């Protein structure tokens, strides 16, 4: 068989462009598979982007082409074929001004099945939803209340149109295009995501919430989130992901950038429940995420994550503590079952004086899964009196799974105080029997023990998320002990 070259592909794409009518509105809008400059241009054009954005994407694409996929993480998987992925897909007939009521009933049914009905969400107190289905936002609520405070919360594609000065000023400043392979890829092809700006001194009156989902087979998801908390402002942002079952591997490479200006505070909470593959390790999402936040003076960023999904997870929400007295926090629960692999943790980069960071990581491994914590605490020479406290606890279920801890410390300032604690425990038969004896069945007993183990992190989640997260922990570990 002769080799299918880059040129052959380009030729084919050219003809397909006409065949599928790239730039006209069509029913199911999925681009032909594969990635090249033309596809990048097409994505940008599709979204009606200004030229600077197109150029920015093309630059990122160039960078990406020259990069190698990283392999230092403690995960094993078949590398995705980046030319076998469709880089853009939108649900049929999308109108960005739609309200929840206008959402496709089939989609609503899907949410219901996932236990997160949009109906309920709508009724939920104080939660504004910006729902991303596949790659395009289809519904936004509570926009008015937010607008009154001057808060901008919209799909990033809209922000590029309506607030280009803000997007241009901040995009790629925290996660540069050349930061890493997946970040570069995301920068070239990001489809949509959320944009949020909290003006000076404003406390966002509600939890901002975004639900990301994949629903079209073979479609990569490349969300881009940009969140700016201006001086003295506060925002709590929730991001939840669920994906319906399917067999093929799906690539997910999101980028999240947070900017907390002087005295601002950002809480960013994630519940990640992408399809983990079946019990035999078939299918599941590859989740390669770059999340990073920058703290200016006296600013604070807290990352809280509950990771239960995905076949392979590669994710290190980080804080650059640039401003003096700034604070970074990372609270994480990562659950792996069956053949799931997770390599996750954080980087706390102490640049300013009197900066403080806290890391609490709870890893739960079951089945034949592998769960790694990888964290870096870095203290620069001028970061006097930097403090870090890290605690990494692992809970094992059964004898076939693995838990690993890779804490890296680089301190260039003698006044740094860095503490690291780690524990590994196993759910014991005695614990299970004790619960059984009190009438609690084994599945419920495991849920109870796991919830107890995770409590310090669950407590950091906003209430409504904590309940969902607890349910997820239970669901993820179902059938993990015979």
């Amino acid at each position, binding site marked *: 068989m002769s080799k299918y070259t880059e040129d052959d592909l380009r030729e084919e794409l050219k003809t397909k462009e006409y065949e599928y009518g790239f730039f006209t509105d069509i029913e199911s809008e999925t681009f032909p598979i594969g990635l090249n400059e033309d596809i990048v241009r097409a994505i940008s054009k599709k979204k009606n982007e200004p030229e600077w954005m197109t150029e920015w994407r093309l630059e990122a694409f160039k960078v990406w082409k020259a990069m190698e996929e990283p392999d230092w993480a403690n995960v094993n998987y078949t590398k995705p074929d980046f030319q076998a992925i469709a880089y853009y897909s939108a649900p049929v007939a999308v109108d960005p001004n739609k309200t929840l009521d206008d959402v496709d009933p089939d989609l609503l049914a899907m949410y219901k099945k996932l236990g997160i009905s949009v109906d309920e969400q709508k009724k939920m107190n104080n939660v504004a939803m910006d729902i991303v289905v596949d790659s395009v936002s289809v519904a936004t609520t509570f926009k008015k209340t937010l607008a009154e405070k001057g808060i901008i919360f919209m799909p990033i594609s809209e922000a590029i149109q309506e607030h280009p000065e803000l997007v241009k000023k901040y995009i790629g400043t925290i996660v540069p295009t050349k930061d890493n392979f997946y970040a570069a890829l995301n920068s070239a092809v990001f489809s949509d995501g959320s944009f949020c700006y909290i003006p000076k001194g404003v406390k966002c009156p509600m939890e901002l919430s975004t639900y990301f989902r994949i629903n079209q087979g073979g479609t990569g998801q490349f969300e881009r989130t940009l969140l700016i908390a201006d001086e003295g402002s506060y925002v709590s942002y929730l991001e939840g992901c669920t994906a319906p079952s399917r067999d093929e591997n799906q690539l997910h490479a999101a980028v999240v950038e947070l900017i907390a200006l002087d005295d601002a505070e950002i809480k960013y909470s994630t519940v990640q429940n992408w399809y983990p593959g079946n019990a035999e390790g078939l299918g599941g999402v590859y989740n390669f995420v770059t999340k990073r936040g920058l703290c200016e003076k006296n600013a604070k960023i807290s990352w809280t994550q509950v990771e239960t999904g995905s076949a392979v997870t590669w994710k290190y929400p980080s804080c650059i503590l640039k401003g003096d007295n700034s604070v970074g926090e990372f609270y994480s629960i990562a659950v792996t079952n069956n053949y799931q692999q997770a390599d996750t943790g954080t980087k706390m980069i102490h640049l300013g004086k009197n900066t403080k960071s806290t890391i609490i990581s709870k890893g739960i491994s079951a089945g034949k899964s592998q769960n790694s914590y990888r964290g870096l605490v870095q203290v620069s020479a001028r970061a006097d009196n930097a403090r870090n406290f890290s605690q990494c606890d692992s809970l094992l279920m059964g004898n076939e799974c693995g838990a690993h801890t890779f804490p890296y410390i680089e301190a260039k300032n003698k006044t740094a105080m860095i503490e690291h604690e780690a524990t590994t425990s196993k759910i014991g038969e005695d614990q299970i029997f004790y619960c059984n*004896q009190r009438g609690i069945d084994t599945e419920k007993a495991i849920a109870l023990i796991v919830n107890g*183990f995770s409590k310090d992190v669950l407590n950091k989640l906003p209430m409504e998320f904590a309940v969902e997260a607890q349910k997820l922990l239970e669901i993820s570990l179902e059938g993990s002990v015979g």
Partner: protein
Amino acid sequence: MLQIKDLHASVEDKTILRGINLEVKAGEVHAIMGPNGSGKSTLASVIAGKEEYEVDKGEILLNEEDLEELAAEERAHKGIFLSFQYPVEIPGVSVTNFIKTAINATRKAKGLADMPAKDMLKMIREKSEMLEIDRKFLSRSLNVGFSGGEKKRNEIFQMAMLEPKLAILDETDSGLDIDALRIVANGVNKLKSKDNAVVVITHYQRLLDYIVPDFVHVLLDGRIVKSGGPELAHELEEKGYDWIKEEVDA
């Protein structure tokens, strides 16, 4: 209520119980005494349905029903309660949350809805007062950092909350000072009725001064070698177990 017939049980291919016969009727209190390693805790675990223990022969009936096929939680739902000799720790799960989960699991098994929070709180208040348990204690992680006495008192608190038909107290007296012993024993006595039964496993006569047994059994090498009334406990306290061993060997 409980009938044990010629029960043989082993763990890891090691035979521990070698033909136990015991009948406990509703309203009765039985004490099982015996030296360390004689199989008292094993008997308790086998009745409660711990999986690692293999029943090699014989049967256990609860209200005429053979328990063989029932999992530990199903036995609990039927009213068997075991106060553990060594209660386990569950970090991050409060005493309150644990007992709430236990009660609602049992209710669910009986087809009942969760106990309303109001009723649950009332019950927790009553039972903790009865056992002189400090409110703050209830929010602590289950058995984590508890003193020996606190652990045992917590077991009896759970018993009081679950209101079992058959309670087996495995060395609940060890680790208790005399005041705590009195409180715990009073608690057990208040819970006693003509419809339930208590099996007290102990080394010492001392607990039996407070919880007065109708029958005392001596367990030796996996067999009940002697049974009698409360006076047998006093005799054991005075003379130890050697004379019984000699009796058996003779």
